[in-house]
């Protein structure tokens, strides 16, 4: 094969996505086995199926509690958050024609952090913290979009600059809240939230995040081929007959919904939205027809894997946000420095 031909073929892309799906299923089942309380994989399968089919319980009650009440919500949440952050990053990269774009580029994360910190400062329960994070995340991006689209010149650059500015404003706000928070109770809680974690995930969190996540994922999946045209830039895409303004707005809205829903239940988890789409670009190419589904599956695999490490590596749990950076940053550097070759 000639060096100039590096685009994975469509057939190759389809096979890669299929392999990823099987990998995800295997990892999904294996993740239930991990943990301090031993549950064999055969029991895992039967316990899970017993929710749908009438299977006589041959397992201990404790196994069922561990699998259904403790591990299932956490595993589901890891998959959902990984999937959403990764798709959101891939979409932002197309909209802003920028390979360095990530889910927090328009301030969705810094808005969520501010909201969560504020809720903790005001003594809200966990549900309140999640709701505050979600609302502030959306508010921030709406603010960024309104300001950015009113600037003169290139609208894409206007929105990016507004994103950086509003982000730093909210970060400053978060810092101020940390300063005035009660250092014995509130401050550690805020700090821990900011580091990102899936520990203590309950089915309620899954339910809370699921609807906005589906609302964000469905349009992106349906429009994914059209996202390709956005990478051509305003003028060319417009001349091809695409309503760039509407398409960009819909994409940003969906990607923001995904980020807000993810960050509000998991805290700040960086790197997934940047690293996973890039890895998928190497594996299936830049065509969003394959890139978006591949990012979904691979994002879920990645975060589930990292969360398994986070809850099992040490006796005390390591916040997943720290681990994604430990894994993500060196991996990204490796991708950058590696000589290009056919995969």
């Amino acid at each position, binding site marked *: 094969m000639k060096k*100039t*031909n*590096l*685009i994975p*073929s469509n057939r190759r892309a389809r096979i890669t996505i299929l392999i990823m799906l099987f990998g995800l299923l295997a990892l999904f089942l294996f993740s239930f086995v991990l943990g301090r309380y031993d549950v064999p994989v055969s029991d895992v399968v039967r316990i899970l199926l017993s929710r749908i089919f009438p299977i006589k319980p041959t397992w201990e009650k404790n196994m069922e509690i561990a699998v259904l009440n403790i591990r299932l919500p956490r595993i589901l949440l890891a998959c959902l958050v990984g999937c959403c952050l990764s798709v959101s990053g891939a979409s932002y*990269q*197309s909209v802003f*024609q*920028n*390979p360095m774009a990530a889910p927090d580029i328009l301030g969705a994360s810094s808005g969520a952090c501010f909201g969560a910190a504020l809720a903790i400062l005001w003594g809200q329960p966990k549900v309140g913290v999640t709701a505050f994070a979600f609302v502030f995340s959306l508010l921030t991006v709406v603010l960024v979009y309104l300001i950015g689209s009113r600037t003169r010149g290139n609208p894409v650059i206007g929105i990016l600059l507004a994103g950086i500015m509003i982000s730093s404003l909210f970060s400053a706000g978060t810092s101020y809240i940390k300063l005035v928070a009660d250092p014995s109770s509130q401050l550690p809680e805020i700090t821990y939230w900011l580091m990102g974690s899936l520990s203590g995930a309950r089915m309620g969190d899954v339910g809370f995040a699921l609807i906005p996540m589906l609302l964000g994922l469905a349009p992106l999946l*349906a*429009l994914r*081929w*059209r996202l*390709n*045209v956005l*990478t*051509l830039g*305003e*003028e*060319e*895409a*417009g*001349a*091809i*007959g*695409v*309503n760039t303004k509407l398409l960009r707005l819909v994409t940003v809205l969906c990607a923001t919904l995904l980020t807000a829903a993810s960050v509000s239940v998991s805290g700040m988890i960086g790197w997934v939205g940047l690293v996973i789409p890039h890895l998928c*670009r190497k594996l299936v*190419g*830049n*065509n969003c*027809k394959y890139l978006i589904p591949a990012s979904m599956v691979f994002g879920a695999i990645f975060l589930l894997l990292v969360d398994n490490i986070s809850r099992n590596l040490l006796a005390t749990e390591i916040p997943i946000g720290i681990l994604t950076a430990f894994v993500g940053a060196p991996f990204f550097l490796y991708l950058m420095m590696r000589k290009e070759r056919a995969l």
Partner: protein
Amino acid sequence: MRLAVENLSFSYGAAEVLHDISFFLEAGEFVSVLGPNGVGKSTLFRCILGSLPDYEGIITVDGRDVRALSRRERAKAVAYIPQIHRPTFGYSVLDTVLMGLSRQVRAFSQPKKEHIALAEDALRRVGAEHLKERDFSRLSGGEQQLVLIARAIAQQSHILVMDEPTSSLDYGNQFRILDLIRKLADEGYGVLLSTHDPQHALRYADTLLALHEGRIAAHGVPADLLDAALIRRLYGVEAELVPSSAGPVIVPKRAGK
């Protein structure tokens, strides 16, 4: 298919860029727009393509005001072939050409077999079928320009607007691309093309549209209009036209000689 520009004027704020421009373009006609940098060639194109709607005057395609057309209808009427530039993300050549079919592919669906056939047909027409699987971002400038022309053909509009398609090509590719564009005009496309090189207009175009300070300096048959006086006026260069077996050749004079 007929593109008509009537009394077009455009200003960026207080600065008037185009003043009272009128011309038309018929099917099968090759119109070459000449003029120094910053004279408003790109602005003229952007008005026609609908990205600068705040102009005075009227632009019509087959009698319909382009401002009244939807994006889809406009894309059906006029295709734009940009100067080559390095894309942010590399796509295969076939995927690049398929993007030109965005008008035909329904909003929430993917390109079907018939769309792929159209894209392959467009590649065949420009003689770039063998590049189908290659990475667009790694092609040579000439090959990239071929693919962008194929993308415009796949768009199935009959007016092609090209902003200096030869500006970043090497000497041989400039003529290969212009030969192809001439062939497309002979097949019935209306071509509106801006170029830096008056020789290109002289050799390939049916009609010359020379712009100077935002106004039309000359409009008509290139061989009748392109002379030393026009070149001096447009570019501030002394030149003479030397006859050759393939028509006159523009020879600029070197400074101090």
